[in-house]
């Protein structure tokens, strides 16, 4: 079962929910793996023990044009939808503009004389952390300046493989990196806060998930802060509210220290345990009767 923890807006508590949910699952002896898909700002590792063990490089293919073979026909340039091939017939000039390349393979397919080959270039890393010799956390990380984390996210998720529970900590927003993360998920948990910003961004995320036909529920973090508008909206829209995490400076403080709430403030452990049970019931509705 794959669960994505997402939020339209950053900083609503996605990482708080992901890491604590991971810990209660682990305490429950569930076969669980956490995947940090926020490859631009991965943070889950801050909350879990251990040093990264396996480190892999995520690469993309980059075309290389052999100018001795090239006939300067311009077909690769015509086929490139990203303006990544600079081409002039007169004066003869052909260059790959690497930062514009999307690794689609069109130029390679276009070339009739075999002048184009590909080299691999690094765009990010995957690292593995283990707890009791079992894989616990997979972290995707873009190299600073990499334009799109999508490939790194997809690779991180596939690296996780099959487990009873795979928790994906999704990147913020509603564009391609978010889609790439929620796409393989069986169920999406949206974390929000009861403020105008929180509601606005939640509405956008839910609109996206509805278009994708993804089942989803909402966790309200910092409940008690802000106002009632969010709750009214959830009722109006018929969106399932999975849990309330109260607004408590103690939680913020534990989080700021890079520690897990369920470990330092055991009073909150039942909140995450109940959340886990409810998510499992939602993701496998057939098993509850």
């Amino acid at each position, binding site marked *: 079962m794959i669960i994505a923890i997402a939020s*339209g*807006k*950053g*900083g*609503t508590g996605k*990482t708080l929910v992901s890491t604590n949910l991971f810990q209660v699952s682990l305490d429950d002896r569930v076969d669980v793996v956490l995947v940090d898909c926020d490859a*631009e*700002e991965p*943070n889950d590792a*801050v909350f879990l023990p251990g040093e990264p063990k396996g480190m892999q490089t995520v690469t993309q293919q980059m075309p290389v044009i052999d100018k001795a073979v090239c006939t300067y026909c311009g077909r690769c340039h015509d*086929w490139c*939808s*990203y303006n990544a091939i600079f081409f002039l017939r007169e004066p003869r000039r052909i260059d790959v503009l690497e930062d514009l390349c*999307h*690794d*689609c*393979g*069109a130029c390679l*397919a*276009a070339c009739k004389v075999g002048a184009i080959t590909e080299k691999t270039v690094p765009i990010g890393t995957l690292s593995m952390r283990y707890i009791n010799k079992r894989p616990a956390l997979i972290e995707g990380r*873009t190299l*600073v*300046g*990499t*334009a*799109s*984390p999508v490939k790194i996210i*997809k690779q991180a998720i596939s690296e996780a493989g099959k487990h009873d529970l795979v928790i994906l900590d999704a*990147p*913020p*927003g*509603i*564009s*391609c*990196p*978010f*889609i790439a993360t929620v*796409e393989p998920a069986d169920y999406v948990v949206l974390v929000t806060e009861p*403020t*105008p*910003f929180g509601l*606005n*961004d939640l509405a*956008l*995320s839910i*609109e*996206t998930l509805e*278009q*994708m036909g993804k089942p989803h529920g909402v966790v309200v973090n910092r409940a008690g*802060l*802000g*106002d009632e508008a969010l709750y009214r909206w959830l009722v109006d829209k018929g969106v399932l509210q999975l849990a309330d995490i109260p607004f408590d*400076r103690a939680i*913020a*403080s534990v*989080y*700021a*220290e*890079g520690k897990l709430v369920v470990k330092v403030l055991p009073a909150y452990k039942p909140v995450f345990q109940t959340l886990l049970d409810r998510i499992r019931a939602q993701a496998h509705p057939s098993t509850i009767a």
Partner: protein
Amino acid sequence: MKDRGPLKEIVVLSGKGGTGKTSITAALATLLGNSVVVDCDVDAANLHLLFSPEVQETNVFVSGHKAVIDSAVCNQCGRCLAHCRFDAIHLVDGQPVIKETSCDGCQLCARVCPEGAISLIPADKSRWYKSTFRYGHFIHARLQPGEENSGRLVRVIREAATSSAIDQQIGILLLDGPPGTGCPVISSITGANIALVVTEASKSGLHDLKRILSLVAIYKLRTFVVINKYDLNQAVCQEMDTFCEHSNVPVIGRIPFDPTFVTAMIHCQSLIEWAPASPSAHVIREAFQELVEQCQLNVTQYR
């Protein structure tokens, strides 16, 4: 001929989301009094909630193209499937179908299709707006959920903002940047002179601060840091101070953990408007003054 003078572009960044970047941008907009403000967080735009803008102009943004397969023409040869590197074509009962959210618009499938069954249609559901609000001009956008190219949309609205600033003879552009370090962030940094990085005193905040500072260093912006919720964790705050000092980046404000920001937000106001005498407002005002002095901002209407 109009003399535009050098346009100063201040971009507010955070690395991590939820640090209070937008609230601080709104406070700065209030203090500037008359500026062009751009919400570059097109993925999850929020500033409009505080500004209640009056939209003057709505524009269409074509974010890219998506392939569609005409099943009546398709002969199910599978060539498109073999060529697609974005895993965007799947077989549904033997018929290749494009998964719109995965399609990158590279057009390769259409080019290799022997039957000409594939065409590309523009993704044109995103919008961007030119508006006015109580402290000047406001450029914002709404990216259609799941659409790409937020980086280019940021570029489009930045260009619109620059020309608005020139038309209105306004010398300061204030940009609320997107979170992260990716393409839209790079688009919002490109061309800016000054970066104000808003972070929060937490371990993950520190981690993200280092990442975003390494990015702005590449673009050689004059950079300043504001630490929000500094009292959440004094040790981390200290570590941030030390890190910034070593990186030669001045910390120009330390704002306490203050729920007043949320109260102001609920009332659709910036903190400076809602609680002008609060300790947080005081810190922001001082940070603003520091920015004005260090960057020689020509602030005519200083509130």
